[in-house]
């Protein structure tokens, strides 16, 4: 009977693949190719070089390489890519998916199925759009701090305070709900010269956020400041430094947030739908170029006021632009309305895009300065100012 039981453990052997036969990829790129095909590129790590990087000889060679293939859909392209690789592609560790700008504009709906169906892929990945280049080029760029550049993109995204590796799930949930439109972060390649060749690539940066409509076609961008407001409004912002001009002090001050929050309150007045967004946050002053002494409570209130105004202004600008220029509800206002007024939502949900452009949005901010760092007034202030 021991034999029988141990037989059960051996069934796994049928599926065994030696580690040496796996090509572990960490970044995945999808681009539009000619003739309505797509091109898949992947960034694979070279295991032997990884170890060498640790011992100080990191200049001797890249720790990764790129391979790609084209086809009518993802799997066909992967087949072609596999022919160029001596090892089987292992998808389990993939954390970053980058999508070329062209493909995003044409619409993502036809290519996304396999990413939620394939049992070897995880939904928990960071999905990014590449601007000003193809996804393949992005994967070829290297980043100074990271051994694996694909992870560099993911970490940069986190540093910005955005969604990090929840962005793909966020996209999927928004794509399947009536009250929200999806967005994805955008990354651009920094070039040191104008020539589009490999040597000119010097790393990359997160530039903004891409807006999609209900057909999953990319229709526009939010710049960095607008993106920050956007993440704040949907209550997903984790880091921010806000700089505001304090009129009473003649100069600027900067607040580094330790806590951020947002609450959206829908209301109906007659035939109008209104939303009131309350942004909240707590932080530390890290830079104060004004001549105000921050140990005086009155001055703190002045600063808080200045920051609140700045935050409100930025948020309103962002919402306004999205409403007027794009008309897609990326903030999830529809969903919030749905949750509070479900019966009314039933009537307007098919027309939400039009309704969204008409809603009135007000923003309030409630910011608290918790600490001011290590000095009260600026230490370089002359005594009589």
């Amino acid at each position, binding site marked *: 009977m021991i034999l029988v*039981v141990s037989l059960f453990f051996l069934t796994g052997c049928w599926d065994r693949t030696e580690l040496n036969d796996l090509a572990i990829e960490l970044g995945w790129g999808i681009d539009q190719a000619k003739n309505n095909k797509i091109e898949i590129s992947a960034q694979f790590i070279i295991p032997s070089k990884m170890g060498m990087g640790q011992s100080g000889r990191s200049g001797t060679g890249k720790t990764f390489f790129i391979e790609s293939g084209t086809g009518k859909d993802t799997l066909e392209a992967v087949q072609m890519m596999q022919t160029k690789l001596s090892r089987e592609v292992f998808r389990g560790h993939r954390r970053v998916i980058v999508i070329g700008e062209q493909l995003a504009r044409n619409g993502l709906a036809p290519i996304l199925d396999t990413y939620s169906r394939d049992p070897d892929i995880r939904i*928990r990945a960071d999905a990014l759009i590449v601007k000003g280049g193809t996804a393949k080029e992005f994967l070829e760029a290297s980043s100074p701090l990271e051994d694996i550049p694909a992870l560099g993109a993911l970490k940069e995204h986190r540093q910005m305070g955005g969604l990090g590796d929840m962005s793909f799930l966020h996209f999927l949930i928004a794509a399947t709900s009536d009250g929200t439109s999806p967005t994805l972060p955008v990354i651009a390649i920094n070039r040191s010269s104008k020539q589009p060749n490999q040597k000119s690539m010097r790393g990359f940066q997160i530039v903004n956020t891409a807006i999609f409509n209900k057909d999953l076609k990319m229709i526009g961008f939010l710049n960095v400041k607008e993106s920050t407001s956007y993440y704040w409004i949907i209550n997903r912002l984790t880091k921010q430094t806000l700089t505001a001009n304090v009129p009473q002090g003649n100069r600027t001050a900067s607040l580094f947030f330790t806590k951020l929050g947002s609450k959206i309150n829908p209301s109906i007045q007659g035939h109008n739908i209104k939303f009131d967004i309350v942004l909240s946050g707590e932080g530390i002053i890290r830079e104060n170029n004004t001549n105000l002494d921050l140990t005086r409570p009155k001055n703190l209130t002045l600063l808080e006021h200045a920051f609140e105004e700045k935050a409100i202004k930025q948020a309103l600008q962002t919402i306004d632009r999205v409403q007027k220029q794009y008309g897609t509800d990326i903030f999830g206002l529809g969903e919030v309305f749905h*949750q509070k007024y479900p019966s009314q939502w039933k009537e307007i949900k098919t027309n939400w895009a039009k309704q969204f452009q008409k809603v009135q949005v007000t923003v309030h901010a409630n910011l608290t300065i918790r600490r001011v760092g290590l000095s009260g007034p600026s230490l370089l202030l002359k005594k009589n100012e």
Partner: protein
Amino acid sequence: MKISGKQIFWMMFTFEVGNSLLLTLSSTIREAKQDAWISMAIAGLVGVAITFFAATLGSQYPNQTMIEYSQTILGKWFGKLLMISYLLLWYSAVGIIIREFGDFMITALFHKTPLWIIVFTTILLLIFLMYQGGVEGIGRLSEIIGPIVLLMITIILILAVKDMDWHYILPIYQDTGLSTIFKASYTPMASFFGESVMIAMFVFFMDKPDQSPSRAMGGIGLAVSMVIIGTLAVIFTYGPNLPSGMLYAFYRMSRFISVMEFIQNVDILIVIIWFFSIFIKLALYTFLACYGTAQWCHLKDWRKVVWFLAPIWFIMAVKIKNIFIFAQYFDKFYLLPFVFPVNMVGIPLLLLAVGWIRRKYAKT
């Protein structure tokens, strides 16, 4: 073979929780969206009620199994006739469940292993268990694995907490409505929570039969609570729309877990949970099929029946072309319209009622 009340508790819990968590979530969420948890609660209540009736029935005839006392209550021929519907259920259940189990194993873990190997090994294990202890062996096994399963589920739920947003559960009730919620609860109720009716057969083996209602209800109650919490967890993580298309929603939620960039890929825990849970369920049904057939046909050694049934199950599990299509037909034409009202509700209540009447008359 004797089993204790505690073993009944863990048996009922283990065999219910794994299957329900894995398979029922998606269809219920598809119908009831974010109110799916209410449907689960309703289904659970009905399940507990069924358990109560079945266990009470069994405890009134502690020296006979259901096959025997149905003949006592309703007469030899009619009693035997009723039991055929149970036997049919037990035979088909084993074949189908082995196939479902094999499919999941292949999808989740062993992509290339042929199905028949998994089926074959499972059947061997079942035969082994029948010979090595029968229901007592199953009871002891559940006593050990039950707490482990509970622990694994709790760990997964705790790890998944940070990705959850409770707002996804809103608006409560408004989007659907009483009829939708009830309709959505029918599937989990009929196909899973009602299976606890098998307790009616097992009271015979208990050393303290009057403990059976409380212990069995406790086990099912715990399983139901876990399923409700699991449903809530899936809705909180994925929202109300996404899980409708997913096949194994709870499993996918566990795949999403990533804590501190370090704890990832915990879906293997789910496979362990499901493996044990399925195995207990398979073992229970196998035992019922063998023992029940033996009693029904007045056979001496119930264990030999398994050699007769095993090849049938093997062929059944391997030959079905596509389990999803088959399971849908099975559910639609057999399980829901027939098994639930008859096996799970009708016959136990009938036996209870007639038995009660007969005892009243016997006193006078």
